[in-house]
């Protein structure tokens, strides 16, 4: 299925390659470079490229193209998902999946690729299992070792692979048992000039950090499960119980994982927590820029980490603005304006205004730029989703398996709402 993988940096160097079947010459990447030449920006390279003998499917992440070479007809989504998983694993192991990290740890990269795929087909991609096969690199490992007192070697077979629950290893033991749940919602929206919503929906995830001994069986219930439109689950969730009772019942993997991702559709009205009042105009040689942001439906919560970015038209030479709060920068090469607003104080709305200067002689641009907004609101899930309770049944040690011992873990739920792809047209 996947024959080879090439990693190509933005300068066009193939800095790493891995072949799972016979070696495919690097020259196959010439077809990729040809496509890359045609694209205006690095993101614009078409992800599926056909060549006389192979298909090249790539993703672009961390300024690297990960190019998979496939020969037979393949399910493209499968390959793309797998490539993403590879990069996720690198990020998980090295802290970031960039070129330097990969080059510094190429031996581990090879080991990982070897375990993740064999003969062209995916083997183990669960981070839990991989980490038992291949230990993460030094700094992290030394910390782990001092804490657990174990050696660097993974010379035992990963136990998780043989346990009845493929995503969890057996014999987990913690002195402090804890389970934390983060409900994170992102608002994707397009708002038009008048402030009305063109399109909005909410993408939510529940990320967990579960450190519990034994084989705990958890049940998570919601106050209002009906608002979840469209849910995808981690394989550990018992789907039938969700279908019938609308509760999440599962034996969790050990450590960090994503329990569910969901979607609150456009049927429900999406509360837009911020508004942006843009006023941008161009005339011959220059223009005015005046943007105000304010809170809208925030349920009394504070809107933080507000950042406004605006990709100005190419003819803009410079901008001379004054913010009432925060700092702004204008990158004259990429023509991107970034205004780091910070918190929004409802009594004194942040505003950024000033003049735009255009290249002399060029006509004023036809259209106004779109503004993209980032923000965070703590302790609020914009969809209104609320966790009701978390129950746990756990088996503390295999010896006492006849007696189900209930132990008291620390439990916690955090809510966070942030902007996903939040755009305001001007």
């Amino acid at each position, binding site marked *: 299925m996947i024959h080879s993988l090439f990693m190509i940096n933005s300068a066009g160097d193939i800095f790493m390659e891995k072949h799972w079947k016979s070696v495919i010459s690097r020259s196959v990447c010439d077809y990729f470079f040809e496509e890359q030449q045609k694209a205006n920006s690095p993101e614009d390279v*078409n992800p599926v490229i056909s060549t006389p003998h192979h298909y090249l499917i790539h993703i672009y992440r961390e300024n690297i193209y990960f190019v998979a070479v496939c020969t037979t007809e393949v399910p*493209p989504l499968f390959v793309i998902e797998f490539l993403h998983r590879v990069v996720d694993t690198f990020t998980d192991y090295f802290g970031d999946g960039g070129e330097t990290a990969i080059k510094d740890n190429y031996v581990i990269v090879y080991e990982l690729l070897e375990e993740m795929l*064999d003969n062209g087909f995916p083997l*183990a991609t669960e981070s839990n299992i991989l980490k038992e096969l291949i230990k993460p690199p030094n700094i992290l490992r030394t910390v782990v070792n001092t804490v657990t007192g174990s050696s660097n070697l993974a010379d035992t077979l990963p136990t998780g692979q043989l346990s009845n629950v493929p995503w969890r290893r057996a014999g987990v033991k913690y002195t402090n048992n804890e389970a934390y749940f983060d409900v994170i919602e992102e608002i994707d929206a397009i708002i038009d000039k008048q402030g009305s919503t063109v399109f909005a929906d909410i993408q939510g995830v529940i990320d967990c950090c579960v450190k519990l001994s034994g084989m705990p069986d958890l049940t998570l219930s919601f106050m209002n499960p009906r608002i979840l439109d469209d849910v995808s689950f981690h*394989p550990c969730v018992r789907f039938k119980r969700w279908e019938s009772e609308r509760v999440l019942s599962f034996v969790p993997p050990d450590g960090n994982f994503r329990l569910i991702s969901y979607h609150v559709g456009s049927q429900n009205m999406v509360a837009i927590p911020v508004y942006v009042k843009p006023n941008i105009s161009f005339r011959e040689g220059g223009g005015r820029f005046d943007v105000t942001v304010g809170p809208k439906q925030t349920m009394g919560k504070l809107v933080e980490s507000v950042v406004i970015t605006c990709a100005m038209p190419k003819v803009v030479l410079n901008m001379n603005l004054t913010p009432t709060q925060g700092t702004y920068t204008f990158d004259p090469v990429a023509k991107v304006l970034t205004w780091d607003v910070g918190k929004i104080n409802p009594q004194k709305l942040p505003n950024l205004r000033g003049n735009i200067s255009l290249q002399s002689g060029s006509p004023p641009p036809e259209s106004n730029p779109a503004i993209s907004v980032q923000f965070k609101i703590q302790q609020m899930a914009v969809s209104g989703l609320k966790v009701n309770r978390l129950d746990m049944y756990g088996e503390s040690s295999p010896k006492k398996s006849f007696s189900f011992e209930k132990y008291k873990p620390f439990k916690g739920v955090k809510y966070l709402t942030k902007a996903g792809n939040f755009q305001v047209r001007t």
Partner: protein
Amino acid sequence: MPFFAGNDTIKELRTALSDPAVQADKNRYRQVLRRVVSLMTDGADMSPLFPDIIKASATPDLVQKKLTYLYICNYAATQQDLALLAVNTLQKDCLEPNPMVRGLALRTMCSLRIPSLVEYIQMPLKRGLQDSSAYVRRNAVNGCAKMLHIAPELIQDASMIDQLYGMIRDKDPIVVVNCLQALEEILQAEGGVVVNKNIAHYLLNRVQDFSEWGQCQVLHFLLKYKPAEEEETFDIMNIVDVCLKHSNSGVIMAALKYFLFLTEDMPQIQEQVYNRAKSPLLNIITSGGPELSYVALCHIQYILTTSPGLFNKDFKKFFCRYNDPLYVKTKKLHVLTEMATDGTESDIVEELSMYCTDVSTDLATASIQAIGKIARRLPTSASHCVGTLLKIHGLQQEHITSAVLMALKDLVLLYPDIIPKVTPLLPNCVDLVQEGPAKATLVWLLGQYGHTLPNGPYILEDMIENVASEISIQVKLELLTATAKMFFSRPAECQDMLGRLLEYCIDEDTNMAVRDRALMYYRLLHTDVQQARRVILGAANRPVQIQDSDAPGQEIIDLQDLNTLVPIYGRRSWDVMVEEQRRKEQQTKLTNGTSNETDMGAEGGEEDDLEETISLLSPSNLTPQEFETKWEELDCVTTVHLDYDPTHSPNGLLQKLEGAHIFTMASSPEDAAPWKAFLFAVAEMKDQTHLVLVELCVDRTAATMQATCKFDADQMEAAVPLISQFGRILRGTITSP
């Protein structure tokens, strides 16, 4: 950057590897190995260290083992003799108590790909299949698939296949999937692994156990089994339902395909399936990365052709974000165009018109085309679309105006009532539109409808003034036609300019097509003006076919194509592409099979459609002296390589050639080696005769012959068909029984 490590580096590494102090310190030793592997990945040749590394592989340290195995796999192919030494260690490792080591060793052994080592691998592989550890079994099963290419007789053995079939019941889910995959490859000739009712039910019951990738593959294999009863189908659907809710889009797509396969004969249920799959699909578009979103969009476009109304309510999800990559935006435009209905059309066109001012001219052009396409598809929306197009036209930008003109060109033919709105715009466009195709469109519109404009002829006149500097042939052709049309409606104003244009095109233009058309018009007008009118204006009344490469309905939808690359390219382009690939592969085989010099037979095959044919005439007199001088003179030479059939005598060959009017001038004695003959022929082509001289040389030991042909052709045009045709005759005659 590949570079060559100097001898010093190698020497230094070798010393380090054999230094007892380093060997004693596990960490230092690993560091050295790491350096070797890092240099290897950078492209430096580390093969001289092979013996040292093999020594290093005999170690209890797992990390060290992995590094050495990595090295061995890389260089085994080039160091086949030394690889034998590695096998020894590997075989020992296969008996280690640690399953991880066993698995690794087995995997490495199967990855060596050296045919001579098969006998050493056979035993460990068979043992591996029965190993108690799942990790080893996985590697063993994969090993079988890997060995298939170097030792097919070992793997395609009946007992081996039975064993693999048995292992589908393995308790480790990854072994099961690997097993299916291996069997599929091994049994490719017989149509792959057989999935009967038992296996299918077994797989379905375990579907939750498999990893996400395993699920994708299993769902693919399940397509081989079609349940007989409806009840069974529903049971299966209940089990697989969970896969549609998976977070991995690959699983979702595989499940959707499986569902559609199950409900192939139940249209109502199929509709429900689509509805159920709708939100996961939309999710991929809104929340997946751009690459996933692109592929999902391609699939949605494909699905839309069978169930057009499916995404009508969600059309807003297909609106572009400004930071989408261009390929996603373009795909979204296509989908939006195809989704537009009477209800949603106004919103969609409004949205599309926003993209017209995008910085990317490609997107702007594509969005204008999309509006044009919607107008063509939905007659009710035409007036709104045209209104929007006219508004956009007001922006006065070259690429926008060009695209608007091209879109309008198609619309005026469909909706004649918009003509009065379009014609007043044309004069403004003249200065703006410079590029070939757009300008040609403008000229065509002027010719067709320009007669209603008061200054219509004068716009054309300006263009005629500058015709000498026009590069585009298309524009010139259109200009000719437009001026001629204008002439029929407003003769007094146009006669002079038409004359000038015709004069320029006939006397000065270098392009054949332009000259031909000008001459035709000139002669037509010269003979009979009424007839000319009928011919030239007649074209406009012909019903116009609009070429619409990606219009729905043209695509043939096949369920089998879902979750493959087909929806990305579209069925038709895919077929063309696959055909192209096959042809190329055959061609490479062909060129590899014969010599590198000109192969006339292969060329001749492609030029079948050439009109010129040659015939070989009866003998003319040619003296040996003349032959010799001609042979020296002629420089149009080609060589044909042929196989020589030793059962035929050379003289028999000469007789055969004489039968085809290729005559012998001289030949060596029958048993001479190499045997040579000089031949000549007179070829007639297009009433001209050409002399052809041939030197035939037979190498009996190699059973080949070589014919050097010289042609008496002074022009290249004549030589090409002559060479290929003569080559074919020669080849045909010699190979005929």
